[in-house]
Structures are given as C-alpha cells and as structure tokens.
C-alpha cells in the first residue's frame, strides 16, 4: 500500500484516464453518497425531465449507508455496500457526467460500457473495513432526501480515503485480472 497514488476529488477527465485497474489510491476532497433508494429517486426525476438535486458532473458517488455518528464523530462506521444494486441506474448518471463510483463487488456490462464511452472509473473500498474508513471522513452534510436517513444523499469531505481502482476507463477489471492470477481449479 506504500505506493498509493493521491487523488483529488472531484475528478477531471485527465485523472480518470490516467488511472489503471489495480492502482492503490488515497482519495481526498469531496464526494456524494447514495444507494438504492436515492438512485431510484434520481432516475425518477430524470424520467420526468426534471433537474437533479445535485450537479453530478465530474463528481464521484460512494455507495454507502453509514451507521449513526456517535457524539463527537462526524460519521459512524461507513464501509461500501454492494454496487450491483445500483447497476440499473448508473449508466444514466455516467452519461450526465458522473466520473467515479466507490463501492464493492462486480458491475454489469452496461455500466462498464458507459464507463468506457464517457470516461469514468470504479473504485473499490474494502467491505467491512467500515470503522477504519470512517477515520478518513472528516465532514458530513445531508444534501438531499433527508427522509431516507442513512440512505439520504450526503456530501462527505474525505482525506486519504483508501481505495483500489477496480475497473478503469478502458474497462480493465481487477475482479478478472486479480483472481485469474491465483485461480488453480475450475468448478
């Protein structure tokens, strides 16, 4: 992990294109959070031709529903949730300029195609390293859908948030490259 690349968020196109699957990164800056319920509402707005409550151009969305913050902490444990549940919504957001996602687990081909076409990167945070990850979140504010509680859209300020590039803008996929190196049997 000593060779981690420091990345500033939001992302520009040049940075996105420079990242390669397998790179260890430390993310700093700001990102939005969102999971199933918030994504559903965003897409419903787009379907109705309405404006989104956040401008996602150049932004990164972290798939997380944090635990409640203890007194004196900005946030509770806050590790990634499984990303495929957001797959049906993601290509539309990438078309609108979403540059990155942080989550865990596989993505479908439609998401990967959109990432390649529009230039976006998928970062992985370690599932279940939630208390450790919370340490890198310095400020939290709710920006949309407060009624959703932990599932509301938050804006996180982060400092040295540890992640790995899982799928890069060329479609190289760490979930294929990594396991292929260590696979010894076929089922």
């Amino acid at each position: 992990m000593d060779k981690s690349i420091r990345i500033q968020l939001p992302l520009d196109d040049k940075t996105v294109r420079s990242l390669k699957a397998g790179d260890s990164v430390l993310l700093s800056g700001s990102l939005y959070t969102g999971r199933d319920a918030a994504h559903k509402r965003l897409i419903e707005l787009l379907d109705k031709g309405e404006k989104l409550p956040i401008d996602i151009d150049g932004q990164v969305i972290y798939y997380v529903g944090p635990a409640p913050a203890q007194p004196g902490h900005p946030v509770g444990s806050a590790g990634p949730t499984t990303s495929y549940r957001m797959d049906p919504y993601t290509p539309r957001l990438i078309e609108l300029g979403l540059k990155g996602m942080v989550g865990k687990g596989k993505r479908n081909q439609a998401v990967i195609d959109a990432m390649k076409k529009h230039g976006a990167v998928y970062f992985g945070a370690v599932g279940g390293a939630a208390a450790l990850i919370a340490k890198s979140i310095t400020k939290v504010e709710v920006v949309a859908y407060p009624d959703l509680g932990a599932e509301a859209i938050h804006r996180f300020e982060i400092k040295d948030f540890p992640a790995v590039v899982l799928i890069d803008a060329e479609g190289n996929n760490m979930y294929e490259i990594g396991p292929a190196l260590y696979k010894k049997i076929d089922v």
Partner: protein
Amino acid sequence: MIRTIQASQITDAVTDLFLKANRFIGDDVLDSITSAMEVEPSPQGKAVLNQLIQNYEIAKEELMPVCQDTGMAVVFIEIGQDVHIANGGLEEAINEGVRQAYEKGYLRKSVVGDPLFNRTNTKDNTPAIIYPRIVPGDKVHILAVAKGFGSENMSALKMLVPADGIEGVKKFILQTVENAGPNPCPPIVVGVGIGGTFELAALMAKRMTAAPLTRRNKNPEYAALEDELLEKINKLGIGPAGIGGQTTALKVNIASAATHIAGLPVAVNICCHAARHAETTI
C-alpha cells in the same frame, strides 16, 4: 422445579449480545485472518487483510460497529422446559433488546417493514428473526447473530436429488461461492446445511455461519468434506475483497440432518469476514 426468569432479563441479555457482537470481532476470526495474512501470496490481498485487522482494532477501541451494515438481528434461543418467563412476552422481550442495542450502540437500523409494497424503515431494526427451541433443563441459552445482507444476498439453496450425490453437493457449494465472487466481502465463512427439508436446510446453514471457526465436525466424513471444500474454495482465486488471492474463505461449517428418501436439500449461507455473533446462558 420451575425456574422463573424475568422477560426483562432476556431483554438485557439480548441488548448486551448485539452490542458485543457488532463491536468486537471474535478471536477466532482475528486469529484466522492473522494466520491467513502470513501465507497470502497476493500483495494486494495481504493489504486488504491488514486493513481488516486494523478495522477490528479501531472498532474495539472506539466502540464502533465493525461494519456499517449492522445486519438483521437473528436470535437462536434455547429455552429449558423448566423455565417460566414472567412479566412479558418472549418475542417482545427479544425485540426490545434489539431496539435498545441498535439505539444505544449507534448501530444502523436496516429493516423495512414490508419487503415489496412499502419498504419503509421500521427505525429500530426490529422485528428480529427468532428461532426458539425447547430443550431439557432450566436454563435459557441465547445466540445473537447480526447478519449483513451483502453476504446474505449471495446465499443459495438447491433441492438436489439423491443421484447428485457427494459430487453434486460439492459442485453446488463451489459454484455458489464462485458466483458470489467479491460481493459478500471475502474472506467469507461458509455455512452449509445438508438434508432435512427445504427450510431446515436453510436454517442449519444459517446456524453454521455462527459456529466457531475452530469447530471440528464430530463426524469424520463431514469433517473431511469441510476441509476439502475449504481447500478448493481457496483455489478459486477470488481472494480478500475479491481482487485475487488464496484467502477466499476462512471456514466451511456443515450441519446435516435426516432427510426423505427422494431428497438431498443443500443450503449455502454465506457470511462475510465480519461474522458477528455472541452468546450467553441465563
């Protein structure tokens, strides 16, 4: 002799157990990940395991939940037949314990009241899923399991037929783990139930996700099957966090039961490395 236990004692015990389970990972998991880290050939896999160990330490020190998905509360409760539970209903006592733990412990409330039409959060992580059993004696034993859904969603059940045999069972278990890939936060614990009926197989599998990683199956044939499956799973290449390596599972625990002449049910309940459970006897 009838022994009286107050419903409030059950509530307090359940509260303590869910707080403990969510904040402190078991020594069995910690030891298992520590030894895996020594032999994990993938540098990135090693780094993931290292993060997990650091995470458990932070959670313990700061009394934070190990994972933000503090799970659905599953309670296995064995009630001695000589016990009388006084001053309150058993289910409500358990649910009240869950309510208090999730409130006091700053644990995430992740339960919706209706699965399909009205997915509104119940806001207190109840209802718990409760499996009571009446056993001889005058004690109450409670096992509290906080079950995350990243791994629950990767679980599977199949009604195999006798002709599928041992090979069929192995294949189904390995396929389930391979399909799950990175999603259930490997390294995982694989709970397996073989035999019984449709629902008993699933229940045994769930119970096995909360068995100690140091458990040795008393039946030598099943013990050997557990070892063989663990070895094979760790050759699938999935690795820590699914980015490649040999530490995909920490343990395979199998429970079996008598079944029908026509059947061979197999349930695979996957649990993440954050295998959070705690137990006590009153």
